[in-house]
């Protein structure tokens, strides 16, 4: 569906304003010391390795997506495809961090993160479910941008499961 120039500029302005507000909030949280991403040396090393695997996963997924688009024809919106690749790379990065106990900074509490992951997963899955019900996820056999909530929800749910399993295993080990 073609949109007018005004619509596209409006979308771009909306995204830019949203990004600026988001960056402003994050900067403020850091200044107020509400957010503190201090990691120790072992965690930094583990996160570096996780970044490496996440980066190569992203490259692999983007290549795979490009080849699949060329071979099979358009099966999903470009932005959705890119989001899918980013989600897979993020899952790889975050799951390695979680398994190596390098996901949380020194000041963060596991329960806070688990609550946050649960809320984000639930919200995205609910919105994604509504999109699915309204038929906005697949149109004319093409995965649309409406699928992004489902992708994000699934991604966060996977991370939550990995986090909870790792947390329970660490607790059991601590008790022993």
């Amino acid at each position: 569906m073609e949109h007018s120039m005004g619509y596209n500029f409006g979308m771009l302005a909306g995204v830019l304003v949203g990004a600026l507000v988001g960056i402003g909030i994050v900067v403020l949280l850091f200044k107020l010391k509400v957010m503190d991403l201090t990691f120790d040396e072992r965690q930094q090393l583990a996160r570096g390795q996780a970044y490496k695997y996440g980066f190569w996963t992203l490259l692999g997924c983007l290549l795979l997506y490009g080849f699949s688009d060329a071979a099979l024809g358009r099966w999903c919106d470009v932005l959705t495809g890119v989001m899918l690749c980013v989600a897979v790379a993020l899952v790889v990065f975050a799951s390695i961090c979680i398994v190596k106990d390098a996901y949380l900074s020194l000041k963060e509490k596991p329960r806070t993160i688990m609550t946050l992951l649960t809320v984000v997963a639930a919200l995205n899955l609910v919105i994604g479910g509504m999109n699915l019900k309204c038929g906005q996820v697949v149109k004319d056999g093409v995965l649309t941008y409406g699928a992004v909530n489902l992708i994000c929800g699934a991604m966060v749910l996977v991370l939550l499961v990995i986090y909870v399993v790792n947390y329970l295993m660490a607790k059991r080990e601590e008790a022993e």
Partner: protein
Amino acid sequence: MKNLRLKSARAALDMSQQQLADAVGVSRQTINAIEKGDYNPTIKLCLAICKTLHKTLDDLFWE
């Protein structure tokens, strides 16, 4: 290889892994990894641990 000397020095001061971790500014899992021999700490962290446990580098980390 497990670092049992670190574990016993910590136990001698009746400190938990979490207390030692807080004292030297790392996570509990990092202290656990050092004791299990899964992680080789930097000299900076070794010194911080030695100071906290009132030991020398030779006492805790020299083979």
